[in-house]
């Protein structure tokens, strides 16, 4: 039995959700918050999106889409082009490669692994940007940004899990 065109379209739209949500997180990071001191250390929300979908639905946010998200991140954020593209790509690759380890594990394990992976990602970004600019970047804001990202992870994972349950349960 072949599915009707509406069912196909419905599935297709649902399959766009992981990319759409991650793109939304990217735009959300760029919204001027008007909070004092927040702008320098805003959490890297798109990174969480890429990590989450790489573990739970790697078929819907494959490496090349993570690459695209990274490129857009570079363009909106003003970092040298390619830095976040590489970081997102590696995060997606590592998380998707180890996803069997995560499935069925507790949230604490996922959080801990995210901490490790993000430390690597932020460190790599720091190295690349410092190398491309030709000067070492002040490490303190980078460390704060990393801690901020870790703090936001539980809230965001909860939201992403709700999204997955609501739209992608059977497709």
């Amino acid at each position, binding site marked *: 039995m072949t599915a009707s065109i509406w069912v196909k379209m419905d599935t297709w739209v649902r399959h766009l959700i992981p990319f759409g949500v991650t793109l939304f997180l990217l735009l959300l990071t760029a919204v001027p918050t008007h909070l004092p001191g927040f702008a*320098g250390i805003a959490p890297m929300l798109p990174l969480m999106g890429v990590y989450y979908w790489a573990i739970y639905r790697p078929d819907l946010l494959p*490496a090349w889409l993570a690459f695209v998200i990274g490129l857009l991140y570079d363009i909106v954020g003003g970092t040298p082009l390619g830095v976040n593209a*590489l970081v997102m*790509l*590696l995060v997606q690759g590592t998380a998707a490669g180890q996803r069997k380890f995560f499935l069925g594990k507790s949230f604490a394990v996922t959080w801990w692994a995210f901490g490790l992976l993000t430390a690597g990602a932020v460190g790599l970004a720091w190295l690349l940007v410092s190398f491309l600019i030709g000067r070492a970047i002040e490490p303190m804001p980078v460390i704060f940004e990393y801690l901020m990202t870790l703090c936001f992870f539980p809230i965001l994972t909860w939201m992403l899990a709700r999204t997955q349950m609501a739209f992608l349960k059977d497709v």
Partner: protein
Amino acid sequence: MKQSSAAGRLATFRLLAQRFAFLSLIVASVALMLLGKADIVLIEHTRALVADAMAPMLDAMARPAATVAQITDNFHELANIRTENARLREENARLMHWQTVARRLESENSVLHENLNVIPDPDPAFVTARVIGDMGSAFGHSMLLGAGSKDGVRKGQAVLSGEVLIGHIAEVGLRSSRLLLITDINARTPILVESTRTKAILTGDNTARPRLNYVAGSPTIAVGDRVVTSASGGAFPPGIPIGAVSSVSDGIVRVEPFIQRHHLEFVSVVDFGLGGILPFERPPPPERRRRGKDE
């Protein structure tokens, strides 16, 4: 049996293709970094084009955020209305005194101008733009503005908030542009310490307080000294306020800008008719190529 081996081969092939795609994406991102480092115009155009495409979405999202910020501000103001009123009364008394002084100086100044036949500075043209994107990042301090080349924004123009310098335009698209703040690691602003007339370069380092480099001579710079733009390099007109010296320790002078970035909602992009700061210009290296042609 045959079928399963074929399926197995297909799976291996698919895995290989995936690996290959992954590797080529890594190579692509490294190539992009190198191209960006070589300052290719194409990269800059692509960035501007994509930023333009995203500008309407960013603009739509920035507006409700601004409204929320305004509402919370209102609450804060209501809560502090008494103390604020007292402070304003005191400030008003002080400013009244300054107004008298300023009036006297203004009339004196106009008389002197007339006597010396001074040619007045031309009134600069400006564009007011909304801040549509502020990607908080520890790797750079920049913002996206909702005005581009079709509104008259050009690369290198000064960006002010009120009368205070906050940065310059680093990239321009058709309807969006990137403002590089003076606190960004790539920002270099020629400045003057107002009280001692000392020239220096204000160097951003991605923290809230940029530092002074290349200080001319060995002046005594004190905390609280005002820092304004200098005319060196023909980047900005002299005398635009930037900030005040916030700390002097071990020869490191840091400046607290008058305007913090979270206050920015609308900024003015000003065309002073000067070259402006063009940070990424490099002299062309024609030597080797020419020799190759001759041989």
